């Protein structure tokens, strides 16, 4: 066990770095539990309405572009990989790969947001799919389709907001990594941010089939 008191990295309320590290990880896991319930409320509403309006939800889903959705899923999975590799580099105390992988993760995260914004939301808005703003839909079940788009924008919007926060936090971690603040004894910041990032990935893993693949494409 490293001598925590010798290190300035130890906050005053902790006895040693191990305690501090465990507290940080546990804190993040508890926070993620909160996040599960936050998205859970949305998923519950989604589940109810999809069952009440199966036809409208399928029709709405068919208006989305599966290719872009799948592409974005792949982008996020790549970013999860680079994040995992960044944590590994931090564990091993290798600064250069750490910085590289953090930058890659941020870039992939930004790519996701840019794709979402330009190729999807902008397109959806121009097509007149924005509920409450310009929603127009000529086919049957227009109201149910609108409900689908409410959930689509809300769920992807809340998810994207989490992405933006994640990219911001990554930028701070990157700055710390650049200054050499991390070591094999002290990398818990990278690890907890990693947990958050993977969590966002998992949310998208569920959003993709639930939003883009309703009712099949056959």
């Amino acid at each position: 066990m490293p001598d925590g008191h010798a290190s300035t990295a130890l906050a005053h309320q902790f006895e040693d770095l191990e305690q501090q590290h465990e507290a940080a990880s546990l804190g993040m896991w508890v926070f993620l539990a909160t996040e599960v319930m936050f998205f859970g409320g949305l998923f519950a509403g989604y589940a109810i309405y999809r069952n009440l309006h199966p036809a409208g939800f399928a029709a709405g889903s068919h208006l989305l572009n599966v290719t872009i959705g799948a592409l974005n899923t792949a982008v996020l999975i790549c970013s999860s990989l680079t994040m995992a590799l960044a944590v590994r580099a931090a564990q091993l105390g290798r600064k250069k790969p750490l910085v590289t992988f953090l930058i890659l993760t941020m870039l992939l995260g930004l790519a996701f947001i840019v794709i979402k914004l330009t190729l999807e939301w902008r397109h959806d808005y121009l097509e007149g799919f924005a509920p409450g703003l310009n929603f127009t839909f000529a086919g049957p079940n227009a109201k149910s389709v609108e409900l689908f788009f409410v959930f689509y924008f809300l769920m992807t919007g809340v998810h994207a907001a989490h992405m933006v926060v994640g990219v911001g936090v990554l930028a701070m971690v990157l700055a710390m990594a650049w200054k050499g603040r991390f070591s094999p004894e002290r990398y818990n910041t990278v690890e907890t941010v990693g947990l958050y990032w993977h969590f966002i990935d998992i949310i998208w893993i569920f959003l993709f089939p639930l939003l883009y693949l309703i009712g099949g494409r056959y």
Partner: protein
Amino acid sequence: MWQGFPLRPDQASTIAQGVDHLYYFLTAIDLFFTAVIFLTIFYFAIRYRRRSEKDQPTQIEGNIPLELLWTLIPLGLVTITFLWGTSLFVQNARPPAAAAEIFVVGKQWMWKIQHPEGIEEINELHVPVNRAVKLTMTSEDVIHDFSVPAFRIKKDVVPGMYTSEWFEATKTGTFHLFCDQYCGTNHALMKGEVIVMEPAAYEQWLSGGVRGETMTQAGAKLYDQLACITCHGTGKGPPLSGIYNRPVKLSDGTTVTADDAYLRESILVPSAKIVEGYPPIMPTYKGQVTEEQLLQLIAYIRSLTPQAGKTDK
């Protein structure tokens, strides 16, 4: 009971007495346990008061049999209460087959009531004594609640769906009708009266009212006005006779029962559930018919199924 200081409202329906008995049972449990806890605390508080700072109380860490005792006794009591309360509730939720039906539409801040005979009243509900009455209710705006304390019934009145409750008045007289679900500014003014009358007086009241047409007739007229017959009478749309409360096969392979809720949805959102073998061509009538007119249309469609209700479970 005590005239000046009543402890319960009038018992004016067949349900009331059963609910009151359960209430007395619960009150007895409450009083018993409150007394046990209060008296024990008082007794301990006096018997074991601190006499000197040097008191060395006997330390007791716990007692498993005692813990089991005061876990199992409440468990037994709540189980009894649950079974009693639930069976009574389910029984009270099921109206007798012969119940007469009256329709209620809640609206900020009034109750609009339609009798099948065609009479409409506002904030007053006239019913005959000793006759089961079922209320089918919906709301034009927010959630209301149709509560008659003397009958021990209440049910929320929810926009977009039909809820129902029933009662059989056992006493003539005038009883409070309250909106019990907070519904905005004049919630406290959304009150009315239920007037229970002798059957003869009720008949007289019915005939004395401004009697236009029955709900079924009004519905039939609407059916003409809206030209429903152009499809439903020609085979372009599914025929409506003999369907009420019967299973209907849908285009997606599922089956639904053609009940009030289904008919309502089919008039307002025709594309939601398409009957098998028919094209989805019906336009929506949302905005063209009021909640009252919807009820009239449904009443008419019901009348096309002779003896509806006798056939299903």
